[in-house]
């Protein structure tokens, strides 16, 4: 079974981001970038399926700038077999990414595409579902457990208030939630080995899809600052203030 794992390079989750003073976006100059945490979970799940003998090949794909190569290398060091980088410096929207990924899927014919449920920069939570729609495939979003059973995949999904299990026909799209697994750290020998694994570099134009941005970003602004609060001396004072001042008890 062949698995495709799309990954995204994003601002590291520990970085405090800054909005540009001209409100055109978030300042990404000299900021630490990493693989999106949900994408790491997707790579880990694919590698576990390969270790269990279920998957035979793991292909990692990223659509983004040249530096997204590092993100692909990270995935290769975790255990993926080869990478594809679709180079573009354009700002990509989920629908555009889904169209490029559809073209990659048609070229590679995977049985399963596992991807993060959302990227922690745009917080859109759209790409996997859109890809499923464009391919006419089933979708198992927000997965916390998955098991392959013949040509079906059983997915436990995190839903509001609990868990839901669905059985999907393959090929299928899976998007990962936090509880699916804990991604490994790549070992030094595996990082060295990953340097020799192939990454196929493509241009966006090679896929002949219209992935131009369609939304107008009017501005990006700072969220309203919270006003500094007060310190209370005792628990009694705290309860009194919550009850009589804030009115939340």
């Amino acid at each position, binding site marked *: 079974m062949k698995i495709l794992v799309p990954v995204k390079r994003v601002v590291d989750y*520990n970085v405090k981001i800054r909005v540009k003073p001209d409100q055109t976006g978030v300042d990404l100059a000299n900021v630490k970038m990493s693989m999106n945490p949900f994408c790491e979970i997707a790579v880990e799940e694919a590698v576990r399926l390969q270790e269990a003998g279920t998957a035979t090949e793991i292909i990692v794909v990223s659509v983004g700038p040249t530096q997204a190569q590092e993100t692909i290398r990270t995935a290769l060091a975790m255990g993926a077999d080869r990478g594809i980088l679709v180079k573009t410096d354009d700002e990509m929207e989920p629908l555009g990414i889904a169209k490029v990924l559809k073209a990659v899927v048609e070229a590679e014919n995977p049985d399963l595409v596992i991807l993060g449920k959302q990227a922690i920069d745009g917080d859109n939570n759209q790409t996997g579902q859109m890809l499923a729609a464009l391919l006419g495939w089933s979708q198992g979003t927000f997965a916390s457990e998955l098991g392959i059973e013949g040509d079906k995949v059983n997915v436990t999904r995190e839903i509001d208030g*609990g868990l839901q299990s669905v059985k999907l026909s393959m090929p299928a799209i899976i998007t990962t939630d936090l509880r699916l697994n804990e991604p490994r750290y790549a070992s030094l020998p595996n990082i060295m080995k990953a340097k020799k694994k192939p990454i196929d570099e493509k241009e966006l134009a090679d896929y002949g899809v219209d992935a131009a941005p369609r*939304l107008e*970003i009017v501005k990006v602004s700072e969220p309203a600052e919270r006003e500094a609060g007060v310190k209370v001396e005792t628990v009694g004072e705290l309860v009194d203030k919550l009850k009589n001042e804030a009115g939340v008890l």
Partner: protein
Amino acid sequence: MNTLLIAEHNNQSLADATVKSATAAAQMGGECHVLVAGSGCAGVAEAAAKLDGVAKVLLADDPQYEKQLAEPMAALVVAIADGYATIASPASTNGKNFMPRIAALLDCSQVSDITAVIDANTFERPIYAGNAIQTVKVNEAKKTVTIRSTAFAAAGDGGSAAVEALGAVDNPGLSEFVNEELTKSDRPELTSAKIVVSGGRGMQSGDNFPMLEKIADKLGAAVGASRAAVDAGFVPNDYQVGQTGKVVAPELYIAVGISGAIQHLAGMKDSKVIVAINKDEEAPIFQVADYGLVADLFTAVPELEEELGKAGL
């Protein structure tokens, strides 16, 4: 051109998220129609018909819509999408699941998790887990939108819209519901709770979380945790509040033994009132807390339980 709001419900009652989302949908232009898709859900349609600002309710009552799986839901909505400039739903896990599928089938863009409607085509939404606010405009004839319902007030119930029955649309048959395990806890769900009590690394062990549970039970609150507490194995992953966990915005958030890492603040700083209990007075959590108590949590929390009892809770 009208707006279609897809209702969140459990086939018995209309979710609070729908009542609040109706307020947002009414600002998106044209008439607001509500789609109630489910099984045995006629009562839900009646409740939706009473919402202020709703002009018509469409009822698709069929077993295939019982769990609102993405594949049949998308097929249904695409079949009735003509005449709607905006198709909206609450940003619940159901809405997040089927809405982008609908958008791609219609070849339109989606604006996710909006917190304000500027005009029929322009919305505000948080990005970077709320560390920046994006104002985004859609310059096309059609769009889908998911609504962060906690950002909107509930619609009134003085309406009396007509309910129109829809036939089912062919199920693409790609997916099958197996079962559901809803948390049986008497405590509310983390993302919709009015009060959240969270513990961090300062709790020292999972064995100390029952202290927080006692407080939560007195307040009718949900229990959460910081990533540090989850990574230390004190509590399971689904307790995690933060950028890579759940984003919450309750009326009251009580952070106990949480230092306030960026990743945690991103998940809770939109709470209306924040209380921090921490023995380190330099902890960053105090910079966002409305009420800070510098104290050892192991004495403060039992004391809090006692004081809440005295206050009649």
